[in-house]
């Protein structure tokens, strides 16, 4: 089985946004949103000793994706190749997954009003093509492939050249988008793109911590009362009730 991963080479990436637009054009993403997004780290240091980096963010197709549990309907699911998909037929647009993603890689498509995000161009992969962002990347900074294939670029970059994931001790969900670069570039990106704690929106918390226990209690109480009544009924026999 494949295990897909993306590697962005920070030494190459110039932040030109070709990936962003190719992706938007490929998937008809409404303007103002992106399945991939180009970020710039803040400029650190004091003139003229400065550092900064551009990098590309997208869905990390995490090993333990918090969005998966946050999605009530199972519209978000993960296939054996590691790709986390959104089944638009099942999505109701509640936005729980958007809040859950530690990398803010998800958004609600304002036209379809459903969740959207990168799926590693699964439809293109099925046609034998590379993801649109990889094909178009002007700087050749994006690499996609199978981590289980030792002949792949990503295998080399991840296992031999030290491409790293952006995660913290607190939030370690196993992202499968890696970054390769000089140590100071990686440090900058890691600092400015640290994942936040996955969370549920207030509505989801209210559902999980309030509505479900209350309903469960009410149903259980009712059930218990009825069980007693039924037991009573059996004990007494039906005739006793008549009249």
């Amino acid at each position, binding site marked *: 089985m494949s295990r897909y991963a993306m590697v962005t080479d920070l030494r190459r990436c110039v932040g030109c946004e070709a990936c962003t637009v190719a992706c938007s054009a490929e998937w008809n993403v409404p303007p103002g949103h992106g399945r991939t997004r180009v970020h710039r780290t803040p400029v650190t240091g004091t003139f003229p000793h400065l550092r900064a980096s551009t990098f590309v963010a997208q869905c990390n197709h995490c090993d333990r994706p918090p969005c998966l549990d946050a999605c*009530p309907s199972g519209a978000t699911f993960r296939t054996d190749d590691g790709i986390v998909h959104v089944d638009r037929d*099942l999505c*109701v647009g509640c*936005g729980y997954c958007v809040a859950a993603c530690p990398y803010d890689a998800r958004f609600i498509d304002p036209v379809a*009003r459903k969740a959207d995000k990168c799926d590693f161009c699964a439809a293109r992969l099925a046609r034998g093509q590379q993801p649109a962002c990889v094909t178009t990347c002007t700087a050749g900074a994006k690499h996609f492939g199978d981590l289980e294939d030792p002949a792949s670029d990503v295998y080399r970059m991840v296992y031999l050249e030290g491409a790293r994931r952006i995660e913290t001790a607190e939030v370690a969900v196993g992202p499968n988008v890696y970054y390769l670069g000089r140590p100071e570039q990686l440090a900058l990106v890691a600092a400015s793109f640290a994942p936040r704690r996955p969370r549920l929106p207030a509505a989801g918390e209210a559902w999980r911590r309030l509505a479900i226990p209350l309903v469960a209690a*009410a149903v259980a109480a009712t059930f218990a009362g009825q069980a007693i009544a*039924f037991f009573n009924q059996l*004990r007494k026999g039906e005739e006793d009730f008549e009249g």
Partner: protein
Amino acid sequence: MKAEAIPAVPDPITAEQARAMSQRRLKKHHVAIVIVHWFNAVTWLLELATGAGLVVSRHFRVAPAWFTALVEGVFGTRANMLRFHEALGLAWIVVFLVYASFGWRTYLRAEVMHREMGLDRNDWRWLAVRAARLVGRSREALPPQGSYNAGQKLFGWLVYTMVPLVMATGVVMTFRLIGPAVVGWAIPIHFAAVGAVLAGLMVHVYMGAVFPEEKSAFFSMVSGTVDELYAYNHHFTWWREMKLAEREWMRRHDREAEGAVAAPVPDADEPGGTESPD
């Protein structure tokens, strides 16, 4: 029919009286109500099953995995299941909108609601006695009840408040209205409202389908009628109104022989009580 005295409180009756009363039937439900009731029942059953089957997230699931797998198996895919859940829900809403637009004068006007659904002291007492008797803690007689007993009234109120919420949130989710925050809140509200109705529904079903005392009530949802003996025992107040109305009808019928009578009678088109009692 002879003019017997109509008692003001439920007196004990003789076996002969009981036999005679059990042969006579009173009309309780319009045929439309009967149809809507069973449509409603089937809808709830299917919507509950598919609704529970749709929620598979670890955080929110209420049904076990085998159940969601079962329902999914029936529908082929969960997307089909969702489509079915939404379509049936919308159909249900449409039926009730039609029902409400034709029947609101009969069932939903404020004074009707007050009379039919209002809870008085007898009702609260009934609830206490009923509960105590159910668990075998009391053998006290139940206070007299109108066409709906206090339990039915409470359940009615629950349904009247929760069902619009279920419908509104369902529509919000189906069409993903307003924005993700609103859709996000629609889900727990939908769930909680359904949950509340479900708790009441369990009593309702138990009483109707399992509890022997209310057997007549169950069959009334098929035939639309109840026997007089059941009405006398379970809905005395209503039975008395029926009898008074019946007496009035007969009196009008024999107008030339009798003089004018000023006995207070219910309106001619009130629910439940005013159909011709034969």
